[in-house]
């Protein structure tokens, strides 16, 4: 397991960042990373040595996240991402407003777009690796990326207009 330790340790900060961006709760994010690493260790022998380790870990993490989301949806009434009320922008402090805005806007995207924007835009996965993580063809990645970015932009622009109006 010594090789597992040497190969996995450097990737943990990125996994924590991805997990936190997905769930936005520090403890829940670390739970997700822990589950991911435990699973990776259990299946360490089964991984393809030529495959990209990072992409493999992101795949495990995202699959765990998606199945947890599904479980939550099955459990009780769920407010769809499209119906969710926009978070109150005016209530927030000025400091880090743009960052808060950005993450709050990201939270309003459907999971597929949110994950993809993070994998490509933040984690720098290649389009091919991102397609593998998401389990979709490369073409779908490109169109989803385009839609996700446009949607994020429109959410941010609406949010910022609202803020300006309230400040006046």
């Amino acid at each position: 397991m010594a090789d597992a330790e040497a190969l996995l340790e450097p990737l943990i900060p990125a996994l924590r960042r991805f997990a936190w961006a997905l769930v936005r709760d520090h403890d829940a994010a670390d739970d997700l990373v822990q589950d991911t690493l435990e699973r990776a260790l259990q299946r360490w022998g089964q991984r393809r040595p030529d495959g990209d380790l990072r992409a493999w870990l992101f795949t495990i993490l995202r699959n765990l996240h998606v199945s947890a989301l599904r479980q939550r949806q099955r459990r009780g009434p769920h407010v769809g991402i499209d119906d969710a009320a926009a978070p109150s922008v005016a209530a927030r402090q000025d400091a880090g407003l743009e960052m808060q805005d950005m993450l709050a806007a990201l939270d309003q995207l459907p999971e597929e777009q949110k994950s993809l924007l993070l994998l490509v835009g933040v984690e720098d996965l290649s389009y091919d690796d991102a397609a593998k993580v998401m389990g979709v063809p490369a073409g779908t990645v490109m169109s989803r990326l385009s839609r996700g970015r446009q949607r994020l932009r429109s959410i941010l622009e609406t949010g910022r207009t609202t803020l300006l109006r309230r400040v006046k």
Partner: protein
Amino acid sequence: MIGEDELQAFIDDRLDGERRAAVEAHLAANPALAQRVAAERRQRDELRAALQAKFDEPVPARLRIANLAAAQRAPRARLWTNIAAAVAIFAVGATTGWFAPQVVGGITPSPVATAPTVGVAQGATAAYRTFVVEVAHPVEVGVQQEQHLLQWLSKRLGRKLVAPDLSGFGYRLMGGRLLPGGSGAAAQLMYDDASGRRLTIYVRAADGTETAFRFQKEGDAATFAWIDQGFGFAVTATATREELLPIAEAVYRGFGS
């Protein structure tokens, strides 16, 4: 002709020089499109910036591969050690009169929940969760000032506090801190082992004179708590019950003397 895919690759800085120049020329001729692309690029940078602090955080001990791998090697032996531990706890109960109620997975309904040990165990677990992940300031007073630490905490607790020697279990004292606990103060002593695994001893005033040993597991934090002559004690670590029991017994003996 420039397609949407190429615009995305341009936003991601993934085009070679020639295609990049072609996209730039296309954008120069289409100001509205250029504005959109610039906004999406900025958005991408802002998203990265918003998540940078999370990336820079130190990795908590529970996510270290060595700790996770060690936890995975354990299950093989777990069935038999569980049986052995169950027998051992029975034996302890029979010989010392300790009664060992269990709370697995957190709070159970009353009347058990009203036992003073529950409050102590919960306070200990909460303090453990808060400070065991702390990297910069895990303790308020370090082991370098052990004597001062123990005098200070003893004074605030109203009871002589010692730091039991747990080196036999591989744990050494890091230091301690004062916390609010129940109606008064609580003291937390923190230990760690060679792999960075942490253990805490938590002491505060508590009602009752019972010496019941209570085991509680909340998430991965396992706690043994008991009350002795007006004070509640708890030992908490990320450990199995069978690992923690001998340590709890040692701490009990350490404070009993």
